[in-house]
């Protein structure tokens, strides 16, 4: 009767999208990501005015841009996290094809902005760094290939993905961008490791990386200078590293105070590669530890959730995304504390940079999509090992 009077209520098949998203999403990781983005804005307020002043712009010009790109990134992240894994895979592979072509065309159409490496497409109002967008797509494609190799009559996915990795590393090294190439190699290695790599092979690959690094060291002056700077026992205080180290020391435990920092005036990359130094100087060790804790939470939590994952593709893709994300953060901070040689790498979500932010949003959105709670055959887990079938 009621239906006859008021019309039929729409029938929904299954659970509505938003409640299910909210129920299954990893809320902790998402909160951490939002917090990191907030911290990024806060530090941008401190770190970018000197750059804006140098370029003759409104003091908070870069903060506004960061907010715009960050907002975009957050929206992208949320949308990506709402997708089914199969949809994510489909879009990511399509995206990979596009970005791969873009990467391949960089030497012809790209620009180096006078920094000695051709990594960007200039669009006038903004620039795009294809390698940032390539990474999530690459991880998904490689994971797909590897997972399908386990299927009956599947393709030889591991070899194919490795070949793909080598091609991409080749393109990245041409730019040159050894940091990103290492990151891509590392991402593939992690996925291969989780997919069940023989231990002996892993050792061989580690050896190859060392040899490759040595070749790069002797072959590229750009690379050799940075390694030399790292290996010399004294840090020359007039280098970026020297300023960064000193800034961390100046900051101490509680920092010198908001806006009181000096390092941002001396470091050309204070708003990107060395944002952690700005954080350490103005807000002290506490802020740094909070940032580290946020990254660690995201990575470790994602990995723990992926441990329960039954689908090999999701497991591998999630692993690759989480590890790349964490490693990038680790490299950035490791450089600032001189645990690693100087390598231009942004701190995801905290550093300024449109490409990095939006690509990071995509990657993390995918990661969240992969780590969503879904039925994992818990019952069969319970019976596992009890001689079923």
């Amino acid at each position, binding site marked *: 009767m009621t239906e006859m009077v008021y019309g039929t209520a729409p029938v929904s098949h299954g659970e509505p999208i938003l409640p299910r998203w909210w129920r299954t999403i990893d809320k902790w990781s998402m909160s951490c990501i939002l917090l990191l983005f907030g911290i990024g804005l806060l530090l941008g307020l401190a770190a970018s005015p000197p750059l804006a002043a140098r370029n003759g712009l409104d003091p908070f010009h870069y903060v506004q841009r960061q907010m715009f790109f960050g907002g975009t990134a957050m929206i992208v992240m949320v949308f990506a996290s709402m997708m089914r894994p199969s949809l994510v895979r489909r879009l990511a592979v399509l995206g990979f094809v596009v970005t791969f072509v873009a990467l391949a065309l960089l030497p012809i159409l790209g620009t180096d902005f006078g920094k000695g490496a051709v990594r960007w497409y200039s669009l006038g109002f903004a620039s795009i760094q294809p390698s940032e967008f390539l990474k999530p797509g690459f991880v998904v494609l490689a994971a797909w290939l590897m997972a399908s190799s386990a299927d009956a009559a599947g393709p030889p996915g591991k070899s194919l993905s490795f070949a793909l990795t080598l091609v991409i590393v080749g393109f990245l090294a041409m730019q040159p961008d050894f940091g990103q190439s290492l990151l891509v190699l590392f991402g593939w290695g992690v996925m291969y*490791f989780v997919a*069940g790599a023989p231990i002996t092979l892993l050792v061989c690959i580690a050896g190859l990386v060392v040899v490759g690094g040595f070749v790069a060291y002797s072959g590229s002056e750009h690379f050799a200078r940075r390694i030399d700077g790292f290996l010399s026992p004294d840090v020359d205080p007039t280098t970026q590293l*020297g*300023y960064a180290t000193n800034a961390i020391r100046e900051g101490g435990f509680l920092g010198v105070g908001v806006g009181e920092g000096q390092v941002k005036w001396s470091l050309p990359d204070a708003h990107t590669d060395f944002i952690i130094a700005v954080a*350490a100087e103005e807000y002290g*060790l506490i802020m740094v530890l909070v940032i580290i804790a946020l990254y660690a939470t995201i990575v470790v939590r994602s990995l*723990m959730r992926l441990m329960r994952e039954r689908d090999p593709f999701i497991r591998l893709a999630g692993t690759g995304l989480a590890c790349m994300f964490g490693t990038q953060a680790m490299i950035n901070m490791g450089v600032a*504390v*001189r645990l690693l040689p100087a390598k231009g790498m942004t701190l995801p979500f905290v550093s300024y940079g449109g490409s990095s932010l939006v690509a990071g949003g995509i990657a993390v959105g995918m990661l969240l999509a992969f780590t969503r709670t879904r039925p994992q055959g818990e019952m069969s887990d319970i019976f596992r090992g009890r001689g079923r079938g």
Partner: protein
Amino acid sequence: MIRTPLRPLARILRARQSGENPDSIEQENVRVRAEAAAARTRAQSERRLFVMGVAFFCAFSVIGARMGLLAASEAAEPQARSTANAILAGRADIVDRHGRVLATNLQTHSLYAQPQNMVDPEGVVDELLKIFPDLERERLIKDFTGKRKFLWIKKKLSPEQMQAVHDIGDPGLLFGPREMRLYPNGKLAAHILGGASFGREGVHAAEVIGVAGVEKAFDADLRDPARNGAPLELSLDLTVQSTMREILYGGMTIMNAKGAAAVMMDVHTGELIGMVSLPDFDPNDRPRPLTEGDQSDSPIFNRAVQGVYELGSTFKIFTVAQALELGLLNPETSINTKSPMAWGRFKIRDFSNYGPELSVTDVIVKSSNVGTARIAQQIGGKRQREFLGELGFLEPTSVEMIEAPTGRPLLPPKWSEISTMTISYGHGLSSSPLHLAVGYASLLNGGTRVTPTLLKQTGPQNGPRIVSERTSAQAREMLRAVVTRGTASFGDVEGYAVGGKTGTADKPKPRGGYYKDKVISTFASVFPAHDPKYVLILTLDEPEERSGQKPRRTAGWTAVPVAAEMIRRTAPLMGLRPAVEPGAKAELVKAKH
């Protein structure tokens, strides 16, 4: 390994019998296998993911810990990377024998410019010219507006100048700290100290290096960080040095000399108590070497150490002492002094004719060239050369100054018999006043060789014996007689029993031969003669005493009165009490006057 077939024969046969499709059995088996493999992989992945999680956690912890360590460490002032050999400032002071400062360091600043930071280069140049009138306007403007990124403007600034530059207020003008060498006594001991200048220069420090004198001779020593700032103690006595300079300067002026030198040496320790060379200079602003003319006329030329002169009759005592030592004669032996004495085509004459013969003592007292030449003939050239060699006249002195090796004596190319005769009275062999001081000290201190030194000594040198005590005493008696009744009668200083020998040598012309009206007049003295403590050598270059009708140039009229005044003033400073001479001989001499 037991292989499980995908199509187990028993089941296939049974299925065939029951009419089922046997392929489904194979598919079922494939599925089961794949599931089992997936389960295995999953378990492995689970473990490996756990490992990764732990690894990431550890890595983040390490970074956090490292951040904590860095944050806990002290922030350092940004400094330039320390190179392997950093510029070490901190040169040790130089003090005299009583610890009075001769050379020390002063903190000051240098001024340099970074033209690219300059707001108003032309205005800066104008302001700078007001402070430093010696700068060149055109050149500065060129430097400041050109491509140079860095230039020194002034190496040392006074505080007033620094403040004035500071008040210009241009960001392109910068100060660098400097440690500069300061000689608070100005010209005193200028030749001994030498001077210092900057070696390697950086913005934040500069190396101070010695350029001459003891500063250079002890350069490494003074800069040695292991010294820990301990000063270098010289043998000089600042008050004696000051008095000697004052009197020598006055004497040089009165006697119209163009240069002068004086050496005061302790006869037992070889310590140089004072050493003056005039004209002198201010080591705070050391002049450059002359670019033309005779270097020996430059104020930086040390006449006492570097200048070698024919020191004339002062050498006679060596000849006589050697003859005494060899037992060829005694002080009373008569010597033929008939002047002139012909030797081949040479003629040796005395200042005036002293009669046919004189005793050995009177040869010295009256300064007879002929008598000395005859004694030298008895000694012979070989033995004379050996003896002078023992006294150090054939080698440069070994005093601790960088200039010492340049004071190399000029010897005759061939030590012929005529050379032997002229050298016996101080011609034909050129040596420095310091050589003469060493010779006198060694001969008169009792007969042991001393080495000259500028470093404070703790006790007497016990060098090799040159002559016997007796010969030494006889030589001193003769020298005393020269003062009491001979050519150096102006040299008597009451209470100090001065003994000495005058020497007036015609200056050699650069092209050979001797000037008639240019002499080097020298007085070599020892006091007190009966108990020798000090030797004083005083040399005047081209003196003329013009109070009489004819200009007088002999040492007795020029060098001796100056030396006497010097002894009168410095002997008390060195702690010598005036004393009555022992023996009635002095009384007798006094009665004669």
